């Protein structure tokens, strides 16, 4: 009851309250009273210089609750095909039992959450692990692209030029993390962009924006004080498949050795 009332009241008073209380009001007045996020973003984007940034992400495995909201948000934000074979990010669930056997599942990438487990007995440890493109500093996918259709930007993000990709799928084969797929509509390679269209406007990637527990920490590795900097300072970090020397920029804290 209380909740419904809140919403009703908030709806009525919102404009007034906003002008009275919110510090951004001044800026909103500048852009013409009507609050338009797009204009704010445009201003941030105009001032954007890629050479001043280098992006990375931290993942706190111990905080992930496997709700799959990141997967949902990613598909919405980036127009990823809804079929269960195409993911820019997905969540895995690990079960390690007493005899050291490990089972992993990720039904539909975890987008609808996870079904109740049938094997609760004998669990030694169990946890969720979000996965995405690692935006490697030495990306094997970029190395093998025959035409320069996938590349590392000046701010360290790996992107695909879908108007130039020939669709040879060599990059999909070369990625050790299964982070790439071929969009059945464009027949070109697709992958996580760290929501490049958002981060260059000063926003957070969609998956980070919606992560309810803060298991994903996005930031600029060149910035000395940021949530990501703190994450790097205080946590013991690990990357995926370090023996392949791809130098990922997605850092996991509390990562289990069974995660590949």
């Amino acid at each position, binding site marked *: 009851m209380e909740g419904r009332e809140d919403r009703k009241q908030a709806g009525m008073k919102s404009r007034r309250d906003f002008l009275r209380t919110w510090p951004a009001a001044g800026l909103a007045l500048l852009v013409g009273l009507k609050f338009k996020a797009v204009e704010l973003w445009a201003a941030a984007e105009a001032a954007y210089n890629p050479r001043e940034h280098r992006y990375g992400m931290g993942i706190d495995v111990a905080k992930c609750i496997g709700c799959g909201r990141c997967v949902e948000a990613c598909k919405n934000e980036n127009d990823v095909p809804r*079929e*269960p*074979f*195409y*993911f820019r990010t*997905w969540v*895995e669930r690990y079960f390690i039992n007493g005899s050291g056997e*490990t*089972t*992993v*599942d*990720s039904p*539909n*990438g975890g987008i609808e959450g996870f079904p109740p487990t049938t094997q609760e007995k004998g669990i030694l440890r169990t946890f969720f692990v979000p*996965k995405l493109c690692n935006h490697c500093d030495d990306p*094997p996918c*970029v*190395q*093998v*692209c*025959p*035409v*320069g*259709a996938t590349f590392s930007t000046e701010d360290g993000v790996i992107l695909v030029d879908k108007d*130039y*990709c*020939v*669709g*040879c*799928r*060599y990059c*999909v*084969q*070369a*990625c*050790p*993390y*299964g*982070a*790439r*797929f*071929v969009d*059945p509509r*464009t*027949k*070109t390679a697709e992958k996580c962009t760290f929501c490049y269209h958002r981060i260059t406007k000063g926003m957070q990637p969609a998956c980070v924006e919606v992560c309810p527990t803060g298991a994903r920490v996005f930031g600029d590795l060149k910035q000395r004080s940021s949530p990501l900097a703190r994450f790097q300072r205080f946590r013991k970090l690990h990357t995926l498949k370090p023996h*392949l020397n791809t130098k990922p920029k997605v850092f996991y804290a509390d990562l289990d050795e069974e995660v*590949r």
Partner: protein
Amino acid sequence: MEPLAEILKQVSGYIYPNEVELHWSILIVLYPYLTGLVAGAFILASLVRVFNVKELQPTYRLSLLAALAFLIVAPLPLLAHLGHPERAFEMFLTPNVHSAMAMFGFVYAWYLTVVLLLEIWFDYRKDMILWSEQETGLRRWIHRILTLGVFDLTEKALRFDRNAGRIITIVGIPSAFLLHGYVGFIFGSVKANPWWSSVLMPIVFLFSAIVSGIALMLLLYMFTTLIRSKQIDMICLDKLASFLFYALIVDFSLEMLDFIHRLYEAEESIRILGQLVASRLFISLVIVQALMGTIIPLILLALVSPALHPRRPLLKLPDELRRMLYLGAATLIQIGIFSTRWNVVIGGQLFSKSLRGLTVYKMQLLGGEGLFVAGLLLMLPFVILFVLIKLLPPWLDAEAHVPAEEIEPEGVLQPEEAAVIATEA
């Protein structure tokens, strides 16, 4: 989406969600198979030209034409497989020098124009001039155009042709190695995939290419001789069978080395690869590739061909029976090598890079990447070869001769050339 949903049901263990779709289909199996035949056929031709194996003379020109026919078709499965074939030219436009695949265009162009076309041109130049003098109509014009308007038949010009041809063949041998070793490198350099990632991959590819090329020429030689109702030259056939045996021994040893090495090192991937071989690849790898495609032909050739005992084979059989057994061995080898390509290309995609599960490959029947298209692409080289043979008859008895006093003895090596060959070999 239906086929992918179907595959999802047959996945065992865990695979990354993006791995349900298998990315390189049967068309990509064809590509190394076809380039292997090219490289093998060319190496066989160079045995005649550079290493002076006189017995194989009847297959020399046929090998060159076969290499050309298969080389023309080799990039087609790649092109058909691209998501955007209309953008393929970008590989020449903005080649990424770090990409093994980008180099394909250049290796291919080099091999096609600088090696094969030039060698064939120099080899046939004299014949084309002489043929065109006696022909009428379209053939005459085609031959005249192909001479590029040079009708010089002087002894000096002919000697230049021969020398140029020999030099090109010498350049051609490393080029053929490059062409197919490079195809092996495309797979061998993918560090993300433990089934592919191996330094031995280019070498294994190369020797299996030589095996498949010699087997192909053995089959083609028998078939064309039969069609022309000529007598098969048994000395030539025995020699082909012997070389086939030697190449197969090397190929088999290398594959076993690779196998034992993996087993002995037993890296983190060994468990899933063991499952892969024992389940998904059991028939195509253990039965077809190893048993039918390698061990049985090896035994057959060891017993029947003069490979081990040049003067007296282990089993002295009448010509007719020996021919049949050669035919059988070569056919088995072709199937085996195709299987080898299958096991590399498809096998390497049947396990998850999480090393926790196996998926399946559902081959389409029709459709752009189906069995039907693959079959067509496999037939195409034979059609092209038929046209080439009509245009440039490769038979010894079709060769045109300049009046006798102009011919120099062939096949005599100059000392410098012999030295070059020795280092190349």
